[in-house]
């Protein structure tokens, strides 16, 4: 869990407190963060191997981008409420 928080905080350092709060209290937010970590780990792992999975990597990169946007939307939404 701590690892998850750290990587999300490093992505959005201005939202540290909010990330911690949401991570503790919102299952939905936690799920998105976990998926994001899963995505980034997979990408790193595959990049170490070879270029053979280039197409899959593109899909993961896209999904990662989408998840980042989702996280950002949740952080901004919660900040304004």
């Amino acid at each position, binding site marked *: 869990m701590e690892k*998850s928080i750290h990587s999300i905080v490093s992505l959005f350092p201005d939202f540290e407190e909010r990330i911690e709060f949401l991570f503790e209290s919102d299952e939905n937010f936690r799920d998105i963060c976990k998926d994001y970590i899963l995505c980034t780990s*997979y990408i790193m792992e595959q990049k170490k191997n070879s270029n053979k999975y280039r197409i899959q990597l593109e899909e993961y990169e896209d999904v990662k981008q989408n998840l980042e946007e989702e996280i950002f939307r949740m952080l901004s939404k919660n900040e304004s409420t």
Partner: protein
Amino acid sequence: MLLNTQENNELYKYSEKEIVGELHLILSSQLFARSTVLSNFLKYIVHETLDNRTENLKEYTIAVNALGKSSSFNPQVDAIVRIHAGRLRRLLNEYYTSNGNSNTIRIEVVKGTYVPVFRPRLEYNTNNVSENEKPIKQFSRSKLTLAVLPFRNLCPNNDYQFFVDGFGEELTRIFSNFQEIAVVAHYSTRKYISEPEDIRSIGSDLGAHYLITGSVKRSTHEIRVNICLVKTLDGMQVWSQTYNNPLNLDTLIDIQDQIVNEVCSLLGGFYGIIIHEDSKTHRKTLPSIHSFDAALWNYYFHMNFSLEAYNQTRQALEEAMVQSPNYATGLAMLSELYLDAYSLGFPTVDEPVLKAYELAKKAIKIDPHCQYAYQEFAWANIYLKRKEEAIKAMESCMALNPSSVSAMGAIGFGLACVGEYKRADIMLTNSLDLNPNCPWWFFLGFFLARFKAGRYKEALIYAEKIEVPDVFLDPLTKVLAKAELGMVEEAQRDLKNLTQNFPEIVENLEEHLSSFLLDTEIIEKMVQGIQKAQRATA
């Protein structure tokens, strides 16, 4: 809350036309038009469900048939379907809170399954809630959470308030020693003295899955304490007990200590009512490994020891440890699982004992107050034949929380395995007295002590209580006790079961037994017992 989708779809019967109509509405919305992947995903799972092919809704089939992956797709290494499923779930939620708000049917993808649910639009609308009604939020915590509400004082003139207040504080204090359950600070619950609310709202406010409530009354000669355990999800009462004691001011604190200890022993710990109740609920409604909490799988496995539960528990725990590598209790659970697999002959990792030893050691290093970690450190030492170190770890384990009935039982069994039968018997008996929800190996501990002492009738009573068909100790203990009692025919039946289902173990019985029993005399006695039964059969 997770749903049993099949039951749910049977409950709300919609025609295929209605559901396809709803699907088209969703797919034609702007939200979904932006994502071909999620649209294809949703279309596939809805149509497969309508065609009664829900058994096909697995990660692999979704990847290949809906997401265009090749037939070599491996869901073990590629999590893309799970990730897209999460995105789809959230996008549907977003759709139903915006454009789809007034649609009559809702298509949902709940966690733990890829089978969609078709439900009516929620009647509940936040705009219509009166000021006095509080909406009940869904909440989820990573750990099972309990709150103790302040007890109600029903004594005339509010007498004995110190006694009444003491229950909430003491129960909270002792429950906080149990690592399996998180406890909400008592201070956070005090406001409910003056503001009584619906149990479900309180649970939602505090983020607690269970609440302990209680009251104190008195008559001229007696003081009566009622205590209940309530599940906040549905407000149902799970357990309750009334304690009557003679009214004597000098002994009130002792009475309180006694009641508090009894309640904590019965409800808390790994084999307590709270975890038992929670695992029942989850087992019934969450068949998927991805949504089932690893700790509850672990509990489920330790109650039945089936190979299937073992495989699922191992997968769940190993996945959980990848996510949270510093979760001390999780490390201890995995350590225990590797040792169990080793002794039961289940498939496991290379060098399971050393691996288990390292995991338990790491768990203690991360959290020196983790009772479970000491328990497994003791067990790893048993498997490494280090009796003194094992006993030392068992003592450290009990010192951390003497109220933990589950630890008491595990340590009791450990003591039986190292040959300390008297101490084992006392601990197992105490544990069983305080909480009857025990796993089968408690009975194995009793069996070993009785068998060693030559009390075969009693040994047989305990052997009969070991009902775990996937474990060789089930038929073995029955054969041994029956052979010693001269019950030849019955012993033969069990022997047949043993040799047919566990031939490799029978061939190397001494080796298998000595993996977890340190008393060479009892091993010899058990091996001779089997030979005796085999001779009788021949």
